[in-house]
């Protein structure tokens, strides 16, 4: 637990420069390292996406061979899921959860540092696989056998892909234990679970999901590695069962969708009330919906396998469970909309990104419900419809939520604000580019274009939609470049943000920007759901009486 040396003693012996970052166990520094590393992997994954879109811009080979294309889209998917979306949300959680609950650090600071380093090294192992004799894994981020077996993918790149995911899994599991212990045991006096901020709630439920789901993926990859290297036949077509992999893989990877979306929902739940100047509508309904999504998320995995010949009873169960999970998600949607209704909206970049999240995630959620309908799913399985759906959920949802969070909390983390003008320009370019890229993919899917193919015939009528998607992808790249320019420009200008630039509700706004190493000089005592707002109002009414 975070109780060892007194602060003044620590300050004397604290290393400086790069050694300070390598040896740090401070949750804020670790959160920053997670966020920066994840953003670098986002840039790498984005470059891979641009290669994919350049290849598909027109029929015929453009910039790479089919084998290289397989490696590029496999690394793109693995990077975006395991090295960007999940870790950047862990990074924001690391920075903010102790501040939001009024703690000085995470429960296990050294375990927290271990989680970060395992994440970085896992990512480096994945990218080192490009140097493997027969190249990186080209088996998709799903790694389905028999394609991922030693017969069809003899490269050690697949083994390194598996090892990197095992290392990332150890990192995630250690992080989940840390978050659960911190949130359950280290909340400030007076902060009951029903006074805990919604972002922290979302991290708590996500941590339980990681803890329960990740061992399944780790075990599956260990079995795959045994098949590839020790001659076992867990997933062999004869003597084993390739479908077993799909069950094990999706038992992790469908909850992983919620692992990626719940913290983004938590971010939105913090931003909307602040920028609407209203309390969140239905706090307890949002909490229960978060828990319901966390539980139901474990009962929907086989909807990824409708085309594999599941028994009718199983198909009916997974259709029902998939439709059911839309209910708590819909409850949240209504809560967010009612939070904004009648509010005094402050249209700054965090709110724009939050509204972007709501609208894009709504489209992704609706296309997901379409896919829950068995006859539709069988038509669109493995087509570009699925690519459109997952990107509306994970980019339109998670990534818009992540940018909302970065614009909202960067003033707290850095002490200065990102430029609003460039922020709004980035948002609109990103929104337009995103829809130009991914909306046509719905049509391509309905027209029958399969996913993961590196080429298509000119006479199928797919060229225009693909070209539009490629233009859109480059627009997204311009938007992200604007973010980087905005960041550098704002870091140079350093316009002071103040401790509470948005007039926030939660405890992170009660300390300085950036916070001191010990977070709070005295641990605050909490008596409401919006402690900082209530304290601010009391102060204002006190000074007006004076």
């Amino acid at each position, binding site marked *: 637990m975070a109780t060892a040396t007194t602060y003044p003693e620590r300050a004397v012996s604290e290393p400086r420069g790069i050694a300070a970052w390598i040896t740090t166990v*401070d949750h804020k520094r670790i959160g920053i390292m997670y966020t920066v590393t994840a953003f670098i992997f986002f840039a790498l994954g984005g470059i891979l996406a641009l290669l994919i879109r350049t290849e598909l811009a027109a029929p015929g080979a453009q910039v790479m061979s089919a084998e290289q294309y397989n490696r590029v889209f496999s690394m793109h998917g693995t990077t975006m899921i395991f090295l960007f979306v999940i870790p950047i949300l862990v990074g924001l959680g690391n920075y903010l959860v102790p501040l939001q609950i009024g703690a000085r650090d995470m429960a296990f600071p050294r375990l927290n540092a*271990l989680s970060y380093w395992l994440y970085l090294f896992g990512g480096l192992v994945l990218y080192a696989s490009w140097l493997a004799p027969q190249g990186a894994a080209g088996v998709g981020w799903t790694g389905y056998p028999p394609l991922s077996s030693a017969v069809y993918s003899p490269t050690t790149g697949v083994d390194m892909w598996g090892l990197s995911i095992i290392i990332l899994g150890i990192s995630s599991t250690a992080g989940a234990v840390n978050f659960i212990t911190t949130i359950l045991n280290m909340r400030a006096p007076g902060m009951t679970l029903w006074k805990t901020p919604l972002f922290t709630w979302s991290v708590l439920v996500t941590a339980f999901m990681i803890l329960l789901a990740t061992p399944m993926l780790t075990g599956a990859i260990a079995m795959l*590695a045994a098949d590839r290297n020790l001659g076992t036949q867990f997933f062999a077509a004869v003597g084993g069962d390739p479908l077993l992999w799909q069950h094990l893989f999706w038992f992790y990877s469908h909850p992983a969708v919620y692992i990626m979306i719940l913290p983004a929902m938590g971010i939105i739940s913090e931003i909307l009330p602040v920028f609407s100047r209203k309390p969140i509508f239905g706090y307890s309904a949002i909490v229960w919906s978060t828990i319901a999504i966390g539980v139901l998320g474990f009962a929907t995995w086989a909807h990824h396998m409708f085309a594999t010949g599941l028994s009718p009873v199983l198909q009916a169960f997974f259709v029902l469970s998939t439709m059911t999970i839309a209910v708590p998600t819909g409850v949240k949607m209504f809560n967010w909309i009612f939070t904004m209704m009648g509010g005094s909206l402050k249209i700054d970049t965090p709110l724009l990104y939050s509204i972007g999240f709501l609208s894009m995630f709504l489209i992704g959620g609706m296309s997901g419900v379409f896919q829950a309908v068995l006859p539709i799913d069988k038509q669109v399985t493995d087509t570009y419809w699925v690519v459109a759906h997952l990107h509306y959920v994970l980019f339109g949802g998670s990534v818009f939520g992540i940018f909302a969070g970065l614009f909202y909390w960067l003033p707290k983390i850095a002490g200065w604000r990102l430029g609003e003008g460039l922020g709004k320009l980035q948002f609109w370019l990103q929104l337009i580019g995103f829809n130009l890229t991914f909306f046509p993919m719905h049509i391509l899917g309905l027209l029958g274009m399969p996913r993961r193919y590196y080429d298509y015939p000119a006479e199928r009528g797919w060229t225009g939609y693909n070209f539009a998607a490629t233009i859109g992808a480059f627009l997204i790249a311009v938007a992200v470049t604007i973010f980087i320019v905005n960041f550098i420009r704002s870091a140079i200008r350093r316009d002071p943000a103040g401790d509470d630039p948005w007039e926030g509700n939660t405890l992170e706004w009660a300390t300085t920007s950036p916070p001191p190493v*010990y977070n709070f000089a005295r641990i605050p005592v909490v008596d409401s759901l919006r402690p900082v707002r209530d304290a601010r109002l009391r102060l204002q009414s006190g000074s007006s009486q004076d």
Partner: protein
Amino acid sequence: MEQPSSEHEEIHLPPPSIAPIMVAGGITFTLVGLLNLSLFFVGLALLAIGVALWAFSRG
């Protein structure tokens, strides 16, 4: 938010440590060492040193 107590509050935080990065490096090299035996032994050595540093560090 109520006013916190004005009594003196001692702040306890753990000191910086090299052990986490060493343990992480040890785990990584040990696992990657399953594909290359020389890395396996480097990983085990790093892991042992990292765990020892972790176990015997104060706080």
